[in-house]
């Protein structure tokens, strides 16, 4: 594949392909196991996403949700959030 050749160079490609073949059953992303760069992209994407998932919820959001209790039962006319923004 041209991308792999770009990344690793022709000489390294053989070695790389061989290396990945021995490990592809361990690839958690499943469908991209035949392409190491795609496997890496999948890992990076989830890593970035999970790093945010693991963060504590910012105070401003917990405070906002605490105040939701004080908001009267919502109605369909409550679609206008400009007023609610002043909470």
């Amino acid at each position: 594949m041209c991308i792999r050749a770009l990344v690793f160079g022709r000489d390294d490609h053989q070695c790389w392909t061989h290396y990945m073949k021995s490990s592809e059953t361990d690839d958690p992303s499943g469908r991209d196991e035949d392409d190491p760069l795609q496997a890496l992209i999948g890992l990076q994407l989830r890593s970035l996403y999970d790093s945010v998932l693991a963060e504590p919820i910012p105070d401003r959001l917990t405070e906002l949700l605490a105040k939701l209790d004080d908001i009267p039962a919502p109605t369909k006319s409550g679609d206008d959030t400009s007023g609610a923004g002043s909470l």
Partner: protein
Amino acid sequence: MNAREELISNIPNLRAFAVSLSGNPERADDLVQEALMKAWANIDMFEVGTNMRAWLFTILRNVYYSEFRKKRREVEDADGKMAAQLASHPEQFGHLDMADFRDALNELAPDQREALILVGASGFSYDEAAEICDCAVGTVKSRVNRARARLAELLSVQSSSEFGPDTQSRAILSSAKS
């Protein structure tokens, strides 16, 4: 779990989606806040028993496209800040660290980026992602494929001079096994 508790339980996922979508943590929390307000105001439109996460993602996405893209220039100006923040705790992928990946992700067309995130990170099926993006399943698949191809291209160019197969393959291998 009542609606409010369910909203709370979905905040981490909404934030992760918002950060991935906007590329900016502060903007992301504005997005989440706006989405939560809208969701709460329209909670009676949510059908109990259906997928609240998908419903919330749809709302957040609509907020992003209706309001936040107008501020695109500001977001772009803040990209350097985002990269710097991420670089302070890089993942161990050799030189291809999280800041490089973030940069590449930001290069993608927004529709491709969101499709990739929904399917590749948020854990939605193609069907669910299609519903969230209000498009056909085939369109989502095509966007995901184009996003992957474009990322591969960008990351290859970025790292062609420093991306050594020895350290890199070990990094992938150890990550894949962990």
